[in-house]
């Protein structure tokens, strides 16, 4: 489906929404606003070539790209990191905590990659065990109890595929993390800030507003993994990426994300402060739009949004 077709589809959704009285006043106007913005962003976003898509893949994985803690440092005041899943471990591949975002208390969860070799190993390359997801779930439950909005930053090649991770229930844990986010009645804004790899990414991205940085990627499988299965050759990753289009513009086109967060020229790695400012601005914009909605309406709309995803004949 081309961008034009997609735009047409969005326009159709828009006109359908306009004629719909189901959703009630405030909600409807918010949904309209959101779609209108999507249309504007879509019209502005160029359709990327295969080469440009691959550039996003490389930038999303750039070793100098800012990670969750780099944003926490710049966006959150009075930060208190919370540790542990209360049952087995404190997984360093996840950062969770509470702090103040533009004057309001929020809970924040996010994958954390390491900068140097030692920290990379310590953070397990941002690939969390089930214990990490349980830590994130615990922090989200704390947010629910105290009515704090949840911010989720996604940056992982995927959930960790180790023997212990399987034995401790990686699959079921990801399912329950999705389910918890479908149940929360506090506002949730998520943003993919690097790699949004598979179920390990979507498990903390089930949000009222899903953002994606300009050069982030969101994928059902890594390009290498896809190539290895479909072409029997992991070296065909670039070809795979061009085929399944994990870039932000395409995700917006497909209705998977709500907006694209701009990055500093050449990528977020070039200016952490500017990247953080741009990210904070986008989150603030989305959060302000939804934070006064009643929790039950928020949850109903969140589920309805995901329920509508997919294209079939």
């Amino acid at each position: 489906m081309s961008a034009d077709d997609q735009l047409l589809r969005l326009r159709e959704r828009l006109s359908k929404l306009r004629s719909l009285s189901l959703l009630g006043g405030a909600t409807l106007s918010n949904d309209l606003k959101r779609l209108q913005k999507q249309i504007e962003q879509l019209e502005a976003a160029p359709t990327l070539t295969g080469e440009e898509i691959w550039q996003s893949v490389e930038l999303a994985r750039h070793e100098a790209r800012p990670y969750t803690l780099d944003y926490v440092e710049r966006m959150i005041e009075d930060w208190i990191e919370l540790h542990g899943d209360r049952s087995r471990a404190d997984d360093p591949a996840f950062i969770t905590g509470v702090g103040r975002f533009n004057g309001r208390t929020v809970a924040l969860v996010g994958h954390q990659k390491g900068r140097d070799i030692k920290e990379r190993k310590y953070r397990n390359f941002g690939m969390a065990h089930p214990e990490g997801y349980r830590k994130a779930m615990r922090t989200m439950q704390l947010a629910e109890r105290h009515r704090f909005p949840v911010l989720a930053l996604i940056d992982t090649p995927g959930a960790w595929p180790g023997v212990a991770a399987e034995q401790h229930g990686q699959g079921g844990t990801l399912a329950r993390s999705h389910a918890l986010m479908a149940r929360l009645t506090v506002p949730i804004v998520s943003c993919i800030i690097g790699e949004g790899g598979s179920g390990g990414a979507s498990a903390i991205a089930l949000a009222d507003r899903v953002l994606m940085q300009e050069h982030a990627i969101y994928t059902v499988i890594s390009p290498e993994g896809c190539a290895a299965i479909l072409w029997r050759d992991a070296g065909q990753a670039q070809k795979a990426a061009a085929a399944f289009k994990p870039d932000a513009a395409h995700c917006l086109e497909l209705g998977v994300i709500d907006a694209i967060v701009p990055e500093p020229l050449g990528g977020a790695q070039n200016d952490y402060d500017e990247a953080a400012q741009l990210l904070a601005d986008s989150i603030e914009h989305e959060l302000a739009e939804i934070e006064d909605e009643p929790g039950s309406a928020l949850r109903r709309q969140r589920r309805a949004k995901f329920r509508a995803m997919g294209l079939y004949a």
Partner: protein
Amino acid sequence: MTESGVDVSIERKDESRPEEGGRRDPNTCPSCRSHYRDDELRAALRVCPHCGHHFPMPARERIDSLADPDTFEEESADLRSADPLDFFDLRPYRERLAEAELETGLGEAIVIGSALLDGHPCELSVMDFAFMGGSMGSAVGEKFVRACESAAERSVPLISVTASGGARMQEGILSLMQLPKTVCAVEDMHDAGGALFSVMAHPTTAGVLASFASLGDVIVAEPGALLAFTGRRVVQQTTREKLPDDFGLAESNLRFGHIDGIVHRPELRPFLARLLRLFSHER
């Protein structure tokens, strides 16, 4: 046994690889090497009469084995996959879909509908591994969601039988979105007071394990079924860890607390009937 369209490669410890260039006979037991005619196997619910090995079970046969005669009414039978990315790997996605339909006689990797089971009304959602590795794309997700909605509307439990290699890569990110989509549907159904009974057949992996299949109020598996987020080969390649012999198998999952039990196929119908009696709203 690698299938196009699955993001986990399915292997079984107790299965030897097919000979070079050849294809293993689907009616030869990989466990004890007994060979059966298809009607023999079918009559035995595709459980090896000699050693108890559970062969894959086509969706239609599964439904016949569970629903009371002539009570199954299929829903959304006409729903088909689209090709949102114009996906082309070694062959076009559309061609693969057409071929799968031809081979299996199914429109997609899932069949849903209403039925009676031992007289109890319920909704059935049954996956078929033979259709592109039971992979979950937009059509599979949509049909599962409709099964949830149909169950909630009629206030009956939903019985889900899964057999899936995971998300359907050819639909890219939209296939990943079937995880949150199906989970949201289960939550809506739960909020409406509904129940989900999840039966995991071989294999239930990756995206399906990481979404609705794991959210059953009661979860059981068939003997020897692989239930893993990641398959043996990827685990080995990524982590270089030594894998236990029963890695990811139903038996290991039971020991580690992830499922409520292992139910042999001939016992499945009475087991589900008991659950329906317990969870029905009549008193």
